[in-house]
Protein backbone atom coordinates (compact mmCIF):
# COMPACT_ATOMS: atom_id res chain seq x y z
CA UNK A 1 0.00 0.00 0.00
CA UNK A 2 1.24 3.51 -0.86
CA UNK A 3 1.79 6.01 1.93
CA UNK A 4 -0.18 8.77 0.18
CA UNK A 5 -3.34 8.79 -1.90
CA UNK A 6 -4.92 11.34 -4.21
CA UNK A 7 -8.17 12.65 -2.76
CA UNK A 8 -10.58 14.24 -5.25
CA UNK A 9 -13.29 16.30 -3.57
CA UNK A 10 -16.35 17.49 -5.47
CA UNK A 11 -16.80 21.24 -4.94
CA UNK A 12 -20.27 22.72 -5.31
CA UNK A 13 -19.13 26.24 -6.13
CA UNK A 14 -16.93 25.39 -9.11
CA UNK A 15 -18.80 22.22 -10.05
CA UNK A 16 -15.45 20.46 -10.48
CA UNK A 17 -13.07 18.47 -8.30
CA UNK A 18 -10.22 19.72 -6.12
CA UNK A 19 -7.32 17.33 -5.71
CA UNK A 20 -5.24 16.77 -2.57
CA UNK A 21 -2.29 14.48 -1.80
CA UNK A 22 -3.02 12.96 1.61
CA UNK A 23 -0.80 10.71 3.77
CA UNK A 24 -2.44 7.42 4.77
CA UNK A 25 -1.82 4.39 6.90
CA UNK A 26 -3.45 0.97 6.90
CA UNK A 27 -6.26 2.09 9.21
CA UNK A 28 -6.90 5.56 7.75
CA UNK A 29 -10.56 6.17 6.88
CA UNK A 30 -11.89 8.30 4.05
CA UNK A 31 -13.28 10.75 6.61
CA UNK A 32 -9.78 11.16 8.09
CA UNK A 33 -8.42 11.90 4.60
CA UNK A 34 -11.08 14.57 4.06
CA UNK A 35 -10.42 16.10 7.49
CA UNK A 36 -6.66 16.10 6.81
CA UNK A 37 -7.27 18.01 3.57
CA UNK A 38 -9.65 20.36 5.38
CA UNK A 39 -7.29 21.07 8.30
CA UNK A 40 -4.01 21.41 6.40
CA UNK A 41 -4.85 22.32 2.79
CA UNK A 42 -8.27 23.89 2.30
CA UNK A 43 -10.40 24.84 5.29
CA UNK A 44 -13.38 25.69 3.07
CA UNK A 45 -14.27 22.03 2.33
CA UNK A 46 -17.80 21.41 3.68
CA UNK A 47 -18.33 17.99 5.22
CA UNK A 48 -20.76 16.76 7.88
CA UNK A 49 -19.64 14.26 10.52
CA UNK A 50 -19.94 13.66 14.23
CA UNK A 51 -19.39 10.26 15.86
CA UNK A 52 -16.64 8.88 13.55
CA UNK A 53 -17.85 5.37 14.36
CA UNK A 54 -20.81 4.60 12.04
CA UNK A 55 -23.36 5.53 14.68
CA UNK A 56 -24.68 9.03 13.99
CA UNK A 57 -25.30 8.62 10.24
CA UNK A 58 -23.89 12.06 9.36
CA UNK A 59 -21.03 11.31 7.00
CA UNK A 60 -22.79 9.60 4.08
CA UNK A 61 -21.35 10.41 0.66
CA UNK A 62 -20.43 8.77 -2.64
CA UNK A 63 -16.97 7.27 -2.37
CA UNK A 64 -15.59 6.20 -5.73
CA UNK A 65 -19.15 6.34 -7.02
CA UNK A 66 -20.75 4.19 -4.31
CA UNK A 67 -22.80 5.54 -1.37
CA UNK A 68 -20.94 4.81 1.89
CA UNK A 69 -20.13 6.25 5.31
CA UNK A 70 -16.80 8.09 5.12
CA UNK A 71 -15.94 7.18 8.72
CA UNK A 72 -16.68 3.50 8.10
CA UNK A 73 -14.71 3.15 4.85
CA UNK A 74 -11.00 2.47 5.14
CA UNK A 75 -8.73 3.67 2.34
CA UNK A 76 -7.07 0.23 2.32
CA UNK A 77 -10.32 -1.52 1.44
CA UNK A 78 -10.92 0.67 -1.63
CA UNK A 79 -7.96 -0.80 -3.49
CA UNK A 80 -7.27 2.44 -5.35
CA UNK A 81 -4.67 5.21 -5.18
CA UNK A 82 -7.27 7.80 -6.10
CA UNK A 83 -10.34 8.37 -3.96
CA UNK A 84 -13.16 10.48 -5.31
CA UNK A 85 -15.71 11.82 -2.85
CA UNK A 86 -18.99 13.39 -3.94
CA UNK A 87 -22.22 14.33 -2.14
CA UNK A 88 -24.96 11.69 -1.95
CA UNK A 89 -27.27 11.46 -4.96
CA UNK A 90 -31.00 12.19 -4.55
CA UNK A 91 -30.36 14.81 -1.83
CA UNK A 92 -30.20 18.61 -2.35
CA UNK A 93 -26.66 19.85 -1.80
CA UNK A 94 -25.94 22.47 0.89
CA UNK A 95 -22.27 22.77 -0.01
CA UNK A 96 -19.59 20.37 -1.25
CA UNK A 97 -20.23 17.06 0.58
CA UNK A 98 -22.98 18.29 2.91
CA UNK A 99 -26.57 17.59 1.83
CA UNK A 100 -30.04 18.42 3.16
CA UNK A 101 -31.93 15.68 5.00
CA UNK A 102 -35.37 17.38 5.08
CA UNK A 103 -37.06 14.90 2.74
CA UNK A 104 -35.65 11.87 4.55
CA UNK A 105 -36.81 13.11 7.96
CA UNK A 106 -40.22 14.24 6.65
CA UNK A 107 -40.85 10.78 5.22
CA UNK A 108 -39.51 9.17 8.38
CA UNK A 109 -41.96 11.20 10.49
CA UNK A 110 -44.81 10.47 8.11
CA UNK A 111 -44.75 6.74 8.84
CA UNK A 112 -45.21 7.41 12.61
CA UNK A 113 -41.85 6.04 13.83
CA UNK A 114 -42.89 5.28 17.40
CA UNK A 115 -44.79 2.56 19.23
CA UNK A 116 -48.51 3.09 19.51
CA UNK A 117 -49.66 0.99 22.48
CA UNK A 118 -53.31 -0.07 22.45
CA UNK A 119 -54.19 1.18 25.91
CA UNK A 120 -52.24 4.31 26.93
CA UNK A 121 -53.30 3.87 30.57
CA UNK A 122 -51.97 0.34 30.75
CA UNK A 123 -48.77 0.82 32.77
CA UNK A 124 -47.72 -2.84 32.72
CA UNK A 125 -44.47 -3.88 31.10
CA UNK A 126 -44.91 -5.01 27.48
CA UNK A 127 -43.25 -8.39 27.39
CA UNK A 128 -41.88 -9.72 24.14
CA UNK A 129 -40.59 -13.18 23.29
CA UNK A 130 -37.21 -13.60 21.52
CA UNK A 131 -39.10 -14.71 18.40
CA UNK A 132 -41.21 -11.52 18.44
CA UNK A 133 -38.05 -9.43 18.86
CA UNK A 134 -36.38 -11.25 15.95
CA UNK A 135 -39.11 -10.13 13.58
CA UNK A 136 -38.01 -6.48 13.64
CA UNK A 137 -34.74 -6.00 15.58
CA UNK A 138 -32.57 -5.89 12.45
CA UNK A 139 -34.67 -2.96 11.17
CA UNK A 140 -34.26 -1.08 14.46
CA UNK A 141 -30.53 -0.68 13.66
CA UNK A 142 -31.20 2.10 11.12
CA UNK A 143 -29.07 5.19 11.82
CA UNK A 144 -30.88 7.40 9.24
CA UNK A 145 -27.73 7.93 7.21
CA UNK A 146 -29.70 8.11 3.94
CA UNK A 147 -27.33 5.88 1.94
CA UNK A 148 -30.26 3.66 0.92
CA UNK A 149 -32.23 6.64 -0.38
CA UNK A 150 -29.13 7.81 -2.24
CA UNK A 151 -28.75 4.43 -3.99
CA UNK A 152 -32.44 4.02 -4.82
CA UNK A 153 -33.23 4.46 -8.55
CA UNK A 154 -36.87 5.40 -7.86
CA UNK A 155 -35.76 8.24 -5.54
CA UNK A 156 -33.79 9.66 -8.49
CA UNK A 157 -36.87 10.35 -10.62
CA UNK A 158 -39.83 10.32 -8.22
CA UNK A 159 -39.45 13.35 -5.97
CA UNK A 160 -42.41 12.30 -3.81
CA UNK A 161 -41.48 8.62 -3.31
CA UNK A 162 -41.43 7.75 0.39
CA UNK A 163 -38.08 5.96 0.02
CA UNK A 164 -36.46 2.76 1.36
CA UNK A 165 -35.42 4.28 4.69
CA UNK A 166 -38.98 5.23 5.70
CA UNK A 167 -40.45 2.01 4.29
CA UNK A 168 -37.99 -0.12 6.27
CA UNK A 169 -38.95 1.84 9.40
CA UNK A 170 -42.64 1.37 8.64
CA UNK A 171 -41.96 -2.38 8.65
CA UNK A 172 -39.96 -2.09 11.89
CA UNK A 173 -43.03 -0.74 13.75
CA UNK A 174 -45.66 -2.78 11.90
CA UNK A 175 -43.81 -5.99 12.85
CA UNK A 176 -43.47 -5.02 16.52
CA UNK A 177 -45.85 -7.08 18.67
CA UNK A 178 -46.31 -4.13 21.12
CA UNK A 179 -47.61 -1.79 18.43
CA UNK A 180 -51.22 -1.24 17.37
CA UNK A 181 -50.68 1.40 14.66
CA UNK A 182 -50.30 -1.08 11.80
CA UNK A 183 -53.42 -0.08 9.83
CA UNK A 184 -52.59 3.64 10.01
CA UNK A 185 -49.03 3.03 8.79
CA UNK A 186 -50.11 0.72 5.99
CA UNK A 187 -52.63 3.27 4.73
CA UNK A 188 -49.97 6.04 4.79
CA UNK A 189 -47.62 4.08 2.51
CA UNK A 190 -50.44 2.78 0.29
CA UNK A 191 -50.52 5.68 -2.14
CA UNK A 192 -49.33 6.32 -5.67
CA UNK A 193 -45.85 7.33 -4.42
CA UNK A 194 -45.68 4.81 -1.60
CA UNK A 195 -44.51 1.25 -1.25
CA UNK A 196 -45.66 0.10 -4.71
CA UNK A 197 -43.12 2.31 -6.45
CA UNK A 198 -40.29 0.10 -5.19
CA UNK A 199 -39.11 -2.07 -8.09
CA UNK A 200 -36.84 -4.21 -5.96
CA UNK A 201 -33.57 -3.01 -7.47
CA UNK A 202 -32.08 -4.00 -4.10
CA UNK A 203 -29.38 -1.32 -4.20
CA UNK A 204 -30.61 0.05 -0.83
CA UNK A 205 -29.65 -3.19 0.89
CA UNK A 206 -26.32 -3.35 -0.93
CA UNK A 207 -25.17 -0.03 0.52
CA UNK A 208 -26.70 -0.12 4.02
CA UNK A 209 -23.80 0.03 6.51
CA UNK A 210 -25.87 -1.44 9.37
CA UNK A 211 -27.21 -4.55 7.65
CA UNK A 212 -30.78 -3.30 7.86
CA UNK A 213 -31.75 -4.73 4.45
CA UNK A 214 -34.49 -2.22 3.56
CA UNK A 215 -35.38 -4.17 0.39
CA UNK A 216 -36.37 -7.16 2.50
CA UNK A 217 -38.38 -4.93 4.86
CA UNK A 218 -40.27 -3.55 1.88
CA UNK A 219 -41.08 -7.04 0.58
CA UNK A 220 -42.23 -8.16 4.04
CA UNK A 221 -44.39 -5.05 4.28
CA UNK A 222 -45.90 -5.87 0.89
CA UNK A 223 -46.83 -9.25 2.35
CA UNK A 224 -49.12 -7.43 4.82
CA UNK A 225 -50.64 -5.32 2.06
CA UNK A 226 -51.30 -8.30 -0.22
CA UNK A 227 -52.83 -10.26 2.65
CA UNK A 228 -50.09 -12.90 2.99
CA UNK A 229 -49.21 -11.73 6.51
CA UNK A 230 -51.52 -10.99 9.42
Amino acid at each position, binding site marked *: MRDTITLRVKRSESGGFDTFEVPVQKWTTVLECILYAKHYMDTSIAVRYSCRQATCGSCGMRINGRPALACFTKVSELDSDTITVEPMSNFPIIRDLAVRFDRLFENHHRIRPYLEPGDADDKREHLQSPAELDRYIQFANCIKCGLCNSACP*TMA*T*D*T*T*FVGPQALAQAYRYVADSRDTGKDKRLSII*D*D*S*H*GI*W*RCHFAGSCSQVCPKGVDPAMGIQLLRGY*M*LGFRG
Partner: protein
Amino acid sequence: MRESHIMKIHYGTALAAVGLVAVHILMRMADGYAESLEFANVVANYQFLPYAGLLEIMLILLSVHGFNGLRVILLELRQGPSYEKAVSYGCVAAMIGLIAYGTRTIVMVNVGMI
Protein backbone atom coordinates in the same frame (compact mmCIF):
# COMPACT_ATOMS: atom_id res chain seq x y z
CA MET B 1 -59.15 3.44 -5.62
CA ARG B 2 -56.36 2.51 -3.21
CA GLU B 3 -52.99 1.86 -4.80
CA SER B 4 -52.87 -1.64 -3.25
CA HIS B 5 -56.14 -2.57 -5.02
CA ILE B 6 -54.79 -1.28 -8.32
CA MET B 7 -51.56 -3.25 -7.85
CA LYS B 8 -53.45 -6.44 -6.92
CA ILE B 9 -55.30 -6.07 -10.23
CA HIS B 10 -51.95 -5.37 -11.93
CA TYR B 11 -50.36 -8.58 -10.62
CA GLY B 12 -53.54 -10.63 -11.15
CA THR B 13 -53.91 -9.55 -14.77
CA ALA B 14 -50.24 -10.40 -15.41
CA LEU B 15 -50.63 -13.93 -14.00
CA ALA B 16 -53.90 -14.57 -15.83
CA ALA B 17 -52.51 -13.17 -19.08
CA VAL B 18 -49.47 -15.47 -18.91
CA GLY B 19 -51.80 -18.49 -18.58
CA LEU B 20 -54.13 -17.41 -21.38
CA VAL B 21 -51.33 -16.38 -23.76
CA ALA B 22 -49.82 -19.85 -23.24
CA VAL B 23 -53.15 -21.45 -24.23
CA HIS B 24 -53.35 -19.08 -27.19
CA ILE B 25 -49.85 -19.99 -28.43
CA LEU B 26 -50.51 -23.71 -27.98
CA MET B 27 -53.70 -23.39 -30.03
CA ARG B 28 -51.85 -21.55 -32.78
CA MET B 29 -49.18 -24.25 -32.88
CA ALA B 30 -51.75 -27.05 -33.04
CA ASP B 31 -53.33 -25.21 -35.96
CA GLY B 32 -50.23 -24.88 -38.09
CA TYR B 33 -48.22 -21.87 -37.09
CA ALA B 34 -47.38 -20.63 -40.60
CA GLU B 35 -50.98 -20.26 -41.76
CA SER B 36 -52.34 -18.86 -38.52
CA LEU B 37 -52.27 -15.23 -39.70
CA GLU B 38 -53.94 -15.90 -43.07
CA PHE B 39 -57.11 -13.82 -43.52
CA ALA B 40 -59.52 -16.76 -43.72
CA ASN B 41 -57.96 -18.34 -40.64
CA VAL B 42 -58.20 -15.16 -38.58
CA VAL B 43 -61.86 -14.65 -39.54
CA ALA B 44 -62.61 -18.31 -38.71
CA ASN B 45 -60.97 -17.86 -35.31
CA TYR B 46 -63.08 -14.81 -34.53
CA GLN B 47 -66.21 -16.72 -35.55
CA PHE B 48 -65.39 -19.59 -33.19
CA LEU B 49 -66.93 -18.02 -30.11
CA PRO B 50 -64.97 -19.82 -27.32
CA TYR B 51 -61.71 -18.75 -28.98
CA ALA B 52 -63.00 -15.24 -29.70
CA GLY B 53 -63.93 -15.08 -25.98
CA LEU B 54 -60.38 -16.09 -25.03
CA LEU B 55 -58.95 -13.36 -27.28
CA GLU B 56 -61.34 -10.79 -25.80
CA ILE B 57 -60.34 -11.72 -22.24
CA MET B 58 -56.64 -11.51 -23.23
CA LEU B 59 -57.25 -8.10 -24.75
CA ILE B 60 -58.85 -6.86 -21.52
CA LEU B 61 -56.15 -8.36 -19.27
CA LEU B 62 -53.24 -7.03 -21.33
CA SER B 63 -54.80 -3.58 -21.76
CA VAL B 64 -55.48 -3.21 -18.04
CA HIS B 65 -51.98 -4.45 -17.15
CA GLY B 66 -50.19 -2.50 -19.89
CA PHE B 67 -51.86 0.84 -19.32
CA ASN B 68 -51.45 0.62 -15.56
CA GLY B 69 -47.74 -0.14 -16.17
CA LEU B 70 -47.56 2.94 -18.41
CA ARG B 71 -49.30 5.01 -15.69
CA VAL B 72 -46.72 3.88 -13.12
CA ILE B 73 -43.81 4.74 -15.43
CA LEU B 74 -45.24 8.19 -16.18
CA LEU B 75 -45.94 8.90 -12.49
CA GLU B 76 -42.32 8.13 -11.68
CA LEU B 77 -41.04 10.35 -14.48
CA ARG B 78 -42.70 13.55 -13.29
CA GLN B 79 -44.83 14.66 -10.37
CA GLY B 80 -47.48 17.31 -9.79
CA PRO B 81 -51.25 17.15 -9.09
CA SER B 82 -52.52 18.15 -12.55
CA TYR B 83 -49.92 16.04 -14.38
CA GLU B 84 -50.75 13.00 -12.25
CA LYS B 85 -54.49 13.45 -12.78
CA ALA B 86 -53.96 13.77 -16.55
CA VAL B 87 -51.80 10.62 -16.60
CA SER B 88 -54.32 8.57 -14.58
CA TYR B 89 -57.41 9.62 -16.56
CA GLY B 90 -55.47 9.49 -19.86
CA CYS B 91 -54.38 5.90 -19.23
CA VAL B 92 -57.91 4.80 -18.27
CA ALA B 93 -59.30 6.46 -21.42
CA ALA B 94 -56.63 4.87 -23.65
CA MET B 95 -57.30 1.48 -22.04
CA ILE B 96 -61.03 1.74 -22.67
CA GLY B 97 -60.35 2.94 -26.23
CA LEU B 98 -58.09 -0.02 -27.03
CA ILE B 99 -60.51 -2.56 -25.55
CA ALA B 100 -63.41 -0.97 -27.48
CA TYR B 101 -61.42 -1.04 -30.73
CA GLY B 102 -60.42 -4.70 -30.35
CA THR B 103 -63.95 -5.71 -29.34
CA ARG B 104 -65.33 -3.89 -32.38
CA THR B 105 -63.22 -6.11 -34.68
CA ILE B 106 -64.58 -9.30 -33.12
CA VAL B 107 -68.17 -7.97 -33.24
CA MET B 108 -67.82 -6.85 -36.89
CA VAL B 109 -66.66 -10.33 -37.93
CA ASN B 110 -69.52 -11.98 -36.10
CA VAL B 111 -72.29 -9.74 -37.49
CA GLY B 112 -70.98 -10.30 -41.02
CA MET B 113 -69.49 -6.85 -41.64
CA ILE B 114 -66.13 -8.38 -42.61
